[in-house]
Each structure stands twice: as C-alpha cells, then as structure tokens.
C-alpha cells in the first residue's frame, strides 16, 4: 500500500507538471487541443491526490506501522475517530492535507467558474498546477508520508496528547484550508491581469473567493483561540506566538481586500491597489508556511517543524518575484481609470484609510515576528518579542479601525456633506456620551479600556440606528416590524451582511478588552473540603478522583462553585490533569464556568497528594463574547455570500 501511494503521488506530479505547461502553452498559442489536454490532467491530479490521501488513511486504519509516519502519529489504542486528526498532525501528512484541499478547491473553482470567464482561466490554472507540483515535489523528494522503516514496531507512538480535543477536528484543517485557499483569489487576479479584453467581470468571483478564504481563515483562528483557552490551561486565548501571527497577518490583509474590492466594483478605481493586496496576502500565506516548516523563529506550534524551511523560502521568493513582475508588466493596464476620489468625506476615502490601517497593522506584526532575527543579525543580541510588544503597537491601530468601522459605512460614495454626517452621527454620539458617563461612574477609568468600550458602543449604536431607520422606512405598508426588518436585511445582503460581521468584530473586541484589562488571578494551596472566597465567588473543593484509560491516567479535581450573593445556585466545575506516559506529557484541562459577564476559570497547577493541590483561580471578564463572535461572523458572511436571484436574459 505504501509503494502504491508513493507511485500514485509521482503520477500526480507528472500530470500536474503537464497540466501547468500545457495550460501555459495553450494560452500562448491559443490552441484548444493543448488546453483540453491540460484540463484533463488538471482534473486527474485531483483524482491522484485523493487516492494518495485515501491510501494514507487506509494505512492508519489498518495500523500499518511499517509506515514511519503512521507509526509516529497513531497507536493501537487510539480512538479511530482521531485518524483524521492523526492524518495532519505531522509535517508530511499536513503537507498532503494542504495539497488535497488545494486541488479540491482548484477543481471547484474551475468547474463552477461562470461561463464568461472560464476560457480566460488558463494562466490561473497554470499557476494552480505549479503550486500543486511544488507540494508534490516536496513530498516526493523530502517529506514522503509513505516512507517505510525496516524495523516494524508492535505499536505506534500515538497521537500528541495536546491534539486530543474536539477543537482539533476543526482548528488545523480550517486554518490550513484558509491559508491554502488564498491561492485561488491570487490566481484569479493573475488571470484578470492577463485578460486583455478589459472586462470587468472578475471582481464578483474574486470577491466570493476572498470572502470564502477570509471566513475560513477567521474561523480557524478563532477556534484555535478557543482550543487554547479550553485546553492549554493558562487562562488566555491568544499568545502572539509567531505561528499565530503568520495566520493573523494574511487575514488582516484579506480584511482590507474584501473592503477595497467593493470600491473597484462600484467605482472602478483601486484596481492596482487590490492586486497588490492580493499578492501581499498570498506572499504572507507562503511566509506562514515557511515559518511553520522550520523558519528562523521559535514557536509553540511545533507540530510541523522540519528542515524544509529553505524550500518554502525559495518558493516564496520566486512567487514574490513573479507577482512583482506581473504587476509591473501590466502596470499601464491597471491605472487607466477615469474615476477619482472626490472628497475626504467619502466612502472611498474611509475604505482606503481602513485598508491602510489594516495593512500597516499587519506589517507591524510582521516586523515584530522578524525583529528577533534582525536583532541577532544586526545587533548580535537575543531578544524576545511577545505579547506586550504587539499589544502596544498593533492594539491602538485596531482601536482606530473599530472607530472607522462606525463612521465609514454611513459616508456616501463620492462625497458627503459634514451636515449629513452629523445628522446620522448625533443620536449615536449622545447615547455614547451617556454610556461613557455610566462606565466612568461604574469605575472604568483607565484610558485605553475606557476609549475602547465607548468606541465599541458608538459603532454598535450606529449600526442599530441604520437598521432601525431602514426598518421604519419599510414599515409604511405593513405595521409589523419583524418582517420589515428581515425584508430590509435581504434587500441589501452585501451591506447588511457586512454590518452583521461588524457586530461580530465588536463582540470580539468587547471580550478582548474585558479579558485584557480586567482579569484577576489568585494562586492558592487548597485541601479537600476547604472553601475559599474570591471576587464574589465561593469555591468548595469537593474531591480528587483518579481514573485510568489504558496506560493514561487522569486526575480530576471537582469543585462546587456558587456566588456569595446567591449561595443556593451552585455549579460543578471539574479541572483535570491527564498524564500520557508514551509522550511523558501532562495535558491540563481547566474547569470553566462561563457567563456573559465573566468566566470563572480554575487551572489545576499541581496535585500534591490525595487531599492537597495548588490551583490558579482566574476571573476572565467578558470572555464569553469572544466565542459568540464566531457564529455571528459566519452568519454575516453567509448573508453576504448568499447569491441573489440569477438574472436571466
């Protein structure tokens, strides 16, 4: 089976090279036969990669420990449901997974491309095939998931304990899928660059794919944060780790892009800027892969660390070079638009400002990620750049982006008068002022959180005002506000979906500010049946339980928690340590009792004996809102993406 998988992979590699070459030649010579041949191998690559992936899954399911990858990432006692997690839990398998997603998405993009651009996609498909060839090349020559060892172990090493969590079914696949899917908008934009007919049909499909990548990458990041919050047991969710940052950077630039594409759709300007943004996103995604596969910075996400960094670095440099050349080559084509920005107070300007702030924040994060390397090279000192740096540099910019999120959407295209802006802003300003006074009186006096909270409420009131206004104007023929509200939402899906996503971002910001500035911690030694009080909670340590599942031992601590103000209503919280002897690793699962106001978070630090343990008790205010933002974000994206009725001519 291992040889079979490997040979199919080689076949896929040859087909992929063939497809990229023939798409290119077919485009140059305008030869239909070459293109049809390229198309066939393009689709056959999907078949080959799928067969390869299934043969690796087969090896996992049959416990074929002669395969080194299988032996290192699974074991006999592993729950079969974890096979999929084991599949991408190491370097070789994750490469295969990324390739699988890449070819599937490429196939979907090409198969379902609207007929008016389908015959212009040759260059795009050629680049897609080059990317597949690159991955296949790396796997065939450097990271073969089908490598066989001469010595066959009786049992495998098992899957990394940290990965045994429901979040692991979704977080890595979504994140890798998001990063891999960025190549689709990139190649579409390359296709539009070489489209000499100057048709303006590209941005609809471009926007759909950008939104897809954006939503997938965004949810991947959020679920990663949720996983860290529930399993890593440190009370936080975002550590500004290099690998987290390289996922965040393309997402920020993509956010800029989905805004500026609107300007191109509407006014025909920003074309060059959009192409620069797409190329930047793509390069940042490749940078992410490079850093992930053995880049020069240290990270906790070491699952795929390997010595392959240089290959990805070379690929990244080649692709960067190629994007720059292709932009310069088509420069004249990109800047021949008659339309101009007419005023500072216009939707265009606000979107451009939003773009600049997003790109700058992303580049600042990039600077923070590479600064330790810069410092070693130029200054010969080892320094760390971690959370405090990013909080201070990128944090304020995010705040401005949020404020802009409120003002931008109420500005009209082309130009707005100051008076019109003030009329639409006044109610929000008044309400925000009142909220500000209330917050100040209730003790929120520190500068940054205060400004953040009132900005969040400011933006929220603006969105609500827009919706109330829209609903009212639709209520002239019906007196029921609910259908009017939904009609109003449906009437302009792009805009209202955008508002829903903005609300998601507000919820996220609300939670981040709450947890960042108002968290409380207490470290205690506690014995069974002891009761402690902390920040209005009374926490009773009920018992310690010990369980064995196979070789792994699980130690649980049970607590009964109640509010001091309301002692009758109690909650049970369980916090545990699981010890995995195969990995000699302890995985900590914290006990969390979550409400919209605050989370009580109990981290078991150390079990001293049968009756005593040390704990960290943390209060994380508003953390609940961070996780709420995920579903709202998906909902908003779906509203935006839901196709309008197809116009038939």
């Amino acid at each position: 089976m291992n040889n079979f998988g490997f040979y199919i992979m080689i076949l896929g590699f040859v087909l992929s090279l063939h497809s990229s070459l023939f798409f290119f030649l077919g485009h140059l010579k305008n030869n239909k036969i070459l293109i049809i041949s390229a198309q066939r191998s393009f689709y056959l690559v999907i078949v080959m990669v799928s067969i390869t992936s299934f043969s690796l899954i087969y090896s996992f399911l049959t416990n074929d420990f002669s395969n080194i990858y299988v032996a290192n990432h699974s074991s006999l006692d592993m729950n079969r449901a974890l096979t999929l997690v084991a599949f991408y839990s190491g370097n070789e398998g994750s490469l295969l997974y990324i390739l699988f997603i890449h070819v599937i998405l490429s196939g979907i993009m090409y198969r379902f491309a609207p007929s008016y651009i389908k015959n212009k996609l040759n260059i795009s498909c050629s680049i897609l095939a080059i990317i597949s060839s690159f991955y296949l090349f790396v796997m065939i020559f450097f990271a073969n998931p089908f490598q066989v060892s001469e010595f066959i172990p009786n049992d495998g090493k098992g899957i990394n304990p940290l990965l045994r969590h429901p979040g692991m079914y979704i977080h890595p696949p979504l994140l890798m899928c998001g990063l891999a899917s960025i190549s689709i908008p990139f190649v579409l934009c390359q296709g539009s660059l070489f489209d000499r007919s100057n048709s303006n049909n590209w941005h609809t499909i471009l926007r759909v794919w950008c939104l897809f990548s954006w939503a997938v990458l965004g949810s991947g990041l959020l679920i990663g944060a949720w996983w860290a919050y529930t399993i890593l047991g440190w009370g936080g969710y975002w550590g500004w780790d290099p690998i987290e940052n390289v996922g965040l950077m393309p997402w920020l630039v993509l956010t800029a892009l989905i805004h500026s594409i609107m300007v191109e759709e509407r006014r025909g300007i920003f074309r060059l800027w959009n192409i620069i943004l797409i190329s930047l996103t793509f390069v940042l995604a490749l940078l992410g892969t490079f850093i992930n596969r053995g880049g020069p910075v240290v990270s906790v996400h070491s699952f795929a660390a390997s010595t392959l960094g240089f290959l990805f670095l070379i690929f990244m440099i080649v692709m960067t070079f190629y994007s720059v050349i292709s932009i310069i080559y088509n420069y004249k084509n990109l800047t021949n638009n008659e339309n101009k920005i007419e005023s500072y107070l216009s939707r265009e300007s606000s979107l451009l400002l939003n773009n600049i702030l997003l790109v700058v924040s992303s580049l600042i994060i990039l600077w923070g990620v590479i600064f330790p390397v810069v410092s070693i090279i130029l200054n010969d000192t080892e320094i760390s750049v971690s959370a405090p740096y990013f909080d201070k540099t990128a944090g304020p910019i995010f705040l401005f982006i949020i404020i802009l999120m409120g003002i931008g959407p109420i500005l009209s295209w082309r130009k707005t008068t100051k008076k019109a802006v003030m009329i639409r802003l006044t109610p929000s300003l008044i309400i925000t002022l009142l909220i500000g006074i209330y917050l100040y009186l209730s003790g929120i006096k520190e500068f940054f959180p205060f400004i953040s909270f009132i900005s969040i409420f400011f933006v929220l009131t603006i969105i609500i005002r827009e919706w109330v206004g829209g609903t009212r104007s639709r209520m002239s023929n019906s007196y029921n506000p609910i259908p009017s509200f939904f009609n109003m939402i449906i009437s302009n899906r792009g805009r209202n979906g955008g508002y829903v996503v903005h609300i998601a971002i507000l919820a996220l910001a609300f939670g981040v500010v709450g947890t960042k500035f108002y968290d409380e911690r207490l470290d205690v030694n506690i014995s069974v049946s002891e009761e402690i009080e902390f920040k209005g909670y009374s926490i009773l340590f009920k018992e310690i339980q010990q369980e064995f599942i196979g070789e792994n031992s699980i130690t649980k601590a049970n607590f009964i928690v109640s509010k001091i103000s309301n002692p009758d209503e109690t909650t049970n919280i369980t916090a545990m340590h699981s010890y995995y002897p195969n990995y000699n690793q302890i995985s900590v699962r914290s006990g969390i009792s979550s409400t919209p106001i605050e989370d009580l978070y109990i981290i078991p630090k150390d079990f001293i004996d049968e009756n005593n343990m040390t704990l960290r008790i943390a209060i994380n205010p508003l953390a609940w809102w961070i996780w709420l933002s995920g579903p709202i974000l998906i909902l908003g994206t779906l509203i935006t993406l839901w196709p309008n009725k197809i116009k038939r001519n």
Partner: protein
Amino acid sequence: MSGMIYVKNLKFILLFNFFLLTVLCSCILPEENSEKDLYIQLEKEIMCPVCDGQTLDQSQSLIAEDMKNTIKEKVSQGYNKEEIKNYFVARYGEGVIAYPKVEGFNIFAYLIPIIGLIFSLLIFGFYIRKQKLG
C-alpha cells in the same frame, strides 16, 4: 477659496496623526501607576527561557513555575518591577524580557512601526488631495 479647504483638510490629517501618535506613545510608555498586581504584570512580561516563545503566564513548565515563585518572593520582599526584571536579565540574558526595551538598537522595534504609520497616513492624505485636484 478652494486652497483654504485643502489646507484645512491637511490640518485635519495632521491633527489626526498627532492624535494617533499620542495614543501610541501613551501606550508604549511604561504605565507606572497601573492598579494591577505587580506579580501578574511581571508574569506577562517575562519569558519562560526554555519554552519556545511563551511568557511565564502561558507556561506550566517546571522552570516557569520556579520563576513565578521567585517573582512572588521578590515582590513580597519589596523589590520593584525594574529590580526584579534586572535580576532575571542578569541570569538569563536580555531575551527573558517579553518585549524589546526602548533603548539602543531596540528603538527600531518601535520606531519603524510609528514611522511607517505616519508615513502611510501622509501618503493617504496627499493621494486623496491629488485625486481631488486632478
């Protein structure tokens, strides 16, 4: 008349820049009288030297727990923030602090983002001005 409007707008941009800068600086400068516990602050500002880019509060390794206890001890003995940080720097090197200190070569860590931000905002202002005129 139209010239007036542009000058006004430029002022607006400069003001906006200035506002951004003050916020940035207020965030970068160390907060002296923050109400939070010194111990929790330090835990977030000191790296665990062996755990690949985690701060102490993120790590549960033995050495991290050990360092946390040391911080607790030092705080209860009345050492201030700088003294405790210096103690760890002397033991583990500059890399144990979770952010580049605003001194020497490290100034570039902060200078480049600030310059980049101001520069890009100025470009934004002039770009729109040019578009309006042209």
